[in-house]
């Protein structure tokens, strides 16, 4: 009788993803230390200074510069090792789960075979064959467990050795000379210009220690450079965010009153955290946690309005990638709202079952900054014109090029979604004067895709348009006066117009409702969001099409004025500011 082999017991795996918190904490602290080192060096005695040696030796900032250099060296050493260890252990933990499942199956097999061996039934003709097959699987499993154990031990030994080299101040002083030469690396990066493909190749050729040193010393450069892989950007930006927020929180704890600018930074940081938290405890259709990446974090950009981008799902590996581009009045303090829209787009698209989806909330340009009012929006059109959309288009092109440069495998199905003035930015990037080339383009609540793009065929990508009938911003598109190009919902433009909900009726004396209508395209369970999700999932052919607008928008405004009656029209007209009154008067003969 052939003996039934028993699988070896599974070793424990006490590593958990919580270990990553150690890495992010050390990285955030290292970022602070690096900042302090920069300040101390800037105020230290210059190297080779001629003077009293004793005076230099006792100079506190010179001395402190040396101390923080040692601390920074120790943290970069530990950080590099811990990050590599966590990467390796994430893989090995996955293998461990596979082995655990295998062990469970083999235990069941043992029970079943023993039962057959002990059976009083007539001879079991296939039993020996089945036992040999089982034993072969056990042998493979045992080997895999042994290999796994060796791999874990090797990973542990590496990180333990590295931490051991950096866990005393004296040892750290000896590490200072081995820290990567950050200024030289930054010079190399600078010489690559803005070519995300060249930057990606350069980055991948760096050592792990060089990457960590760069992320710690210059997180705002590394985190915001297109072409650097998303995980590294996220590491750098989160370290920057955490260091900044903790410093501001510390000031508050110390009883200081934050200045207006500092309070703005604080509010921005909170909004970014709220945006990232959209993915907290959320899972995709496969039951895996939805990752959130901070792809862009520059709170000082756009005169302090700030830039930011949050991705839900991994755009380097997803089958479908979408980018949400916001419009009027968007600032980093409001990125949580934009992130919510991107999160919902991802979820809606994923339900189509066409593959994995990553959706990005991208606030990477200086959107016209106006308050949420009709005065703000219309003033915005008059003041900003297409200038800010043009500048934004260049940033968007670079960002999307960066997504392609860091892509692992084939290009994804790519959709760019522009809302309001953001649709003009998208149009300028994908149109005649731009270089953006994507599969699909969605323009919602659009006042125009740019003067130079009067037809959907001027844009690279299939063009889908969502314009609520009573969205007054989408009624601004025209071929003349203050507008941002042809109305994309018009028959002449030629895009595919899809169904959207209209949560209210336009009224000259109810601008709150008017603005609600303009900002409802990503409402959960709305027709608009469902159609956007179809496009993102590469099911654009299935959108609920509706007819194009036939009459000029000036006719619509005249009809609305007539419907409201003069009293309401006059009341609405009086509610707006002088500049806007002039605009209405010139545009539609009102007032």
């Amino acid at each position, binding site marked *: 009788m052939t003996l039934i082999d028993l699988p070896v017991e599974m070793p*424990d*795996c*006490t*590593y*958990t993803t*919580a*270990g*990553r*918190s*150690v890495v*992010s*904490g*050390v990285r*955030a*602290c290292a*970022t*602070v*230390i690096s*900042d*302090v080192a920069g*300040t101390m060096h*800037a*105020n*230290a*005695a*210059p190297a080779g*200074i001629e003077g009293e040696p004793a*005076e230099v030796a*006792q*100079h*506190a*900032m*010179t001395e*402190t510069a040396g*101390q*923080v250099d040692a*601390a920074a060296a*120790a943290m970069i050493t*530990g950080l590099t090792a*811990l990050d590599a*260890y*966590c990467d390796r*252990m994430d893989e090995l933990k996955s293998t461990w789960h596979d082995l655990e499942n295998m062990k469970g199956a083999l235990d069941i097999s043992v029970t079943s075979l023993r039962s057959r061996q002990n059976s009083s039934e007539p001879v079991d003709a296939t039993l020996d064959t089945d036992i040999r097959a089982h034993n072969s699987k056990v042998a493979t499993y045992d080997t895999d467990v042994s290999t796994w154990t060796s791999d874990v031990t090797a990973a*542990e030994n590496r*990180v*333990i050795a590295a*931490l*051991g080299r*950096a*866990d*005393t*101040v004296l040892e750290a002083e000896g590490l200072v000379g081995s820290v990567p030469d950050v200024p030289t690396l930054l010079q190399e990066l600078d010489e690559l210009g803005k070519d995300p493909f060249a930057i990606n190749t350069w980055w991948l050729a760096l050592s792990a220690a060089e990457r960590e040193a760069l992320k710690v010393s210059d997180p705002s450069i590394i985190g915001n450079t297109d072409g650097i892989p998303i995980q590294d950007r996220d590491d750098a930006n989160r370290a920057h965010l*955490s*260091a900044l927020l*903790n*410093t501001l*929180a*510390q*000031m508050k704890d*110390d009883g200081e009153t934050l200045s207006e600018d500092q309070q703005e930074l604080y509010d921005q940081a909170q909004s970014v955290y709220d945006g990232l938290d959209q993915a907290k405890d959320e899972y995709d259709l496969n039951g895996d946690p939805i990752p959130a990446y901070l792809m862009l974090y520059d709170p000082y950009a756009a005169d302090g309005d700030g830039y930011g981008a949050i991705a839900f799902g991994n755009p380097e590996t997803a089958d479908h990638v979408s980018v949400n581009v916001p419009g009027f009045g968007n600032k980093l303090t409001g990125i949580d709202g934009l992130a919510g829209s991107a999160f919902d787009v991802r979820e809606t698209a994923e339900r189509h079952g066409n593959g994995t989806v990553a959706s990005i909330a991208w606030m990477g340009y200086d959107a016209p900054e106006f308050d949420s009012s009709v005065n703000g929006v219309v003033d915005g059109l008059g003041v900003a014109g297409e200038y800010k959309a043009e500048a934004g288009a260049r940033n968007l092109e670079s960002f999307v090029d960066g997504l392609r440069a860091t892509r692992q495998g084939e290009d994804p199905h790519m959709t760019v979604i522009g809302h309001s003035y953001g649709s003009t930015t998208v149009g300028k990037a994908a149109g005649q004067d731009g270089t953006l080339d994507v599969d699909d383009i969605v323009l919602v609540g659009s006042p125009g895709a740019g003067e130079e793009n009067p037809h959907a065929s001027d844009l690279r990508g299939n063009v889908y348009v969502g314009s609520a009938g009573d969205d007054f911003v989408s009624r601004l598109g025209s071929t003349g006066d203050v507008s941002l190009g042809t109305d994309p919902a018009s028959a002449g433009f030629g895009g595919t117009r899809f169904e959207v909900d209209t949560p209210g009726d336009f009224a000259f004396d109810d601008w709150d409702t008017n603005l609600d209508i303009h900002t409802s395209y990503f409402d959960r369970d709305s027709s608009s969001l469902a159609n956007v999700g179809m496009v993102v999932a590469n099911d654009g052919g299935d959108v609920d099409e509706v007819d194009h607008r036939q009459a000029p928008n000036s006719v619509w405004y005249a009809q609305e004025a007539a419907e409201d009656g003069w009293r309401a029209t006059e009341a609405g007209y009086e509610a707006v500011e002088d500049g806007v009154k002039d605009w209405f008067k010139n545009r539609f003969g009102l007032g």
Partner: protein
Amino acid sequence: MTTFVLMLSEVRRASDLWDDQAEQLRAGHKRLTDASGSTEGLGDRVGPKAGTYLTTWLSEVTSLATAAQDRADGLDQFTVSTVELDEQSAADLRASLPWTSQDAVVERIGDTNPFPTDDPGPAPPTSPAVP
């Protein structure tokens, strides 16, 4: 005895600088403290070693933050307590200033205005203390 005159605006700038560094270091300390609460997740062998590593750097960052705050506080205290110094005090004070601000402590030659900016800072004592 040589008498020195102090440029208070430079001292205040240095005080702010040290104070900012102290705040940053305390913020960094907080993140390291958070990190040290998660070392168990690194596993049975690595967790304790990471704990030792973090303990060293928590201590060092605390020490750096305390030293920076002490220097800021010391400068503040100094600013309001004295404007004339003896040789040793001048040397001590120079040690806490940025290297480029060493000239803030100068030998007194005739009448020198210790408040060269529009903002004169704290009023000097009516009877300057001469240590």
